[in-house]
């Protein structure tokens, strides 16, 4: 169970860490100042959640590592985030579509985790949920506005959806570890979250006048760590640079 729990916590913390990192790349470059501020807000929320998830992961592991060690000193194959969140930002529409797909999953997940039998997990989830409900509101509103906006914004949002859709499926992938945690009442099966996700996606993407791709194909390899995309290595090269270049220094 300990291994499964550690893996589960890494999956949570790595999703929020890597997505936060990607969003933070927008800082100073967004289309409108208000969006710049809002994106920084989301990145900050996710970073705070990362500190909680990876902090608990480090505690559960009990190997003397800290949340920072986990973030800064693991190589790509030890990361457990879904490939969706490591994908490059693309244009603003792609960033917001990725955010929307993740938020729709994230709200469903946290709703369930808030009732976890593990009190530490329930507490982190309850705290995160308040933030993530707002993230969902915001990304849904933006996806609707741009989907149902100008001809160009509509076309870009449809392209973004076509591009990202096959990466959302991995969020619902379910393995033996998930079953073990589910049996213990610690976490829901990711596959159980799909229906709620679909309801949200159909409603919002419908209002956005966008067509959900017909394919049922889903990329995978991130949450298992078996095969990340090439992008993760470059992201880590940047994120971990100082810790790698000056081992043992305190900052």
């Amino acid at each position, binding site marked *: 169970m300990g291994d499964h729990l550690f893996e589960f916590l890494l999956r949570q913390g790595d999703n929020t860490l890597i997505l936060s990192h990607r969003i933070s*790349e927008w800082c100073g470059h967004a*289309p409108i100042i*208000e969006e710049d501020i809002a994106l920084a807000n989301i990145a900050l929320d996710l970073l705070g959640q990362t500190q909680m998830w990876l902090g608990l992961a480090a505690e559960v592991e009990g190997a003397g590592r800290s949340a920072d060690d986990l973030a800064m000193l693991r190589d790509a194959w030890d990361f457990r985030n879904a490939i969706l969140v490591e994908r490059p930002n693309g244009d*603003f529409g792609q960033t917001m579509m990725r955010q929307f797909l993740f938020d729709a999953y994230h709200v469903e997940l946290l709703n369930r985790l808030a009732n976890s039998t593990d009190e530490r997990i329930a507490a982190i989830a309850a705290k995160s949920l308040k933030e993530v409900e707002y993230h969902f509101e915001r990304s849904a509103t933006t996806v609707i506005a741009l989907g*149902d906006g100008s001809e160009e914004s509509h076309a870009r949002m449809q392209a973004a959806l076509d591009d990202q859709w096959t990466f959302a499926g991995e969020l619902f992938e379910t393995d033996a570890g998930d079953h073990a945690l589910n049996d213990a009442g610690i976490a829901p099966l990711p596959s159980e979250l799909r229906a709620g996700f679909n309801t949200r996606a159909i409603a919002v993407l419908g209002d956005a006048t966008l067509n959900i791709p017909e394919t049922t194909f889903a990329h995978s390899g991130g949450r298992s760590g078996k095969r990340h995309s090439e992008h993760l290595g470059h992201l880590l090269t940047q994120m971990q640079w100082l810790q790698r270049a000056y081992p*043992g220094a305190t*900052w």
Partner: protein
Amino acid sequence: MYAQMVKSENTDSGPELDAFQARIDAGEKIEPKDWMPAGYRKTLIRQISQHAHSEIVGQLPEGNWITRAPTLERKAILLAKVQDEAGHGLYLYCAAETLGVSRDELTEMLLDGRMKYSSIFNYPTLTWADIGAIGWLVDGAAIMNQVPLQRTSYGPYARAMVRICKEESFHQRQGYDIMMKMAQGSEAQKRMAQDALNRYWYPSLMMFGPSDKESVHSAQSMSWRIKINSNDELRQKFVDQTVPQAEYLGLTVPDENLRLDPETGHYKFSEPDWTEFFEVLNGNGPCNKERLEARNKAWDDGQWVRDGMMAHARKKAARAASAKVVAE
């Protein structure tokens, strides 16, 4: 400062102007709907928007290290700090808009080079210690200037400054804290910290602008209470405050002539290279091109987003209007 060498002009005269000056001398606030001389309005627009542009362009050098911050905590602090600066830009654009210009107009003037931003943001951030140096020195210099501006004569500007100043002291503290960690750290970290101070010292002194003893603009701006202290006064205050802080860190201010004058209690120090300052203002700083290119790219790439949101707002309004007709 964030607003450097703002041209001040006065073309009005007569009883209205006298009454206006009397209000300012009495310490009253001028509000957007009040009568004001054209020169006062023009000068304020220049100064406030230069300040706003500086906050926005100022996101770039620090933003350059967000993705490389050494710890989760440092990353969160830096991200929050840079986000604050965007918020400062927003407050200031709003204050400028009360004078009858739009944010879009001002943005276009920044992007095509008609309007300036502070020279300091044309310097590169090369190491993590530069993030410390910017918080400590650049925000420190900004505070020197902004604290008195909370009492400036134009109401919306003064109120924007009050909000901004609340956040600036946190900015300076986080910068000094970064420097402290590095100054007490490994040899490499100490070297990094000293190098950052070496590169940012004189550009920070330049932030206050050249000596304004003989400047007519300054005199006019001061009588309007748009400018509260002289450039030299603020620069001296900054040096007096900062040198002991550098000593406490065990770092050396890169100025051979620096010494405490026992008679005045103030430090004597070398002037920055004003030729370099004017080159930077004229577009020849180390990062002028990159900074403006980055802002232009953000604006151009964001065009479809702004257009799309506007189109959606129009559609929504039209739908609401037709729904109302149907209901009636």
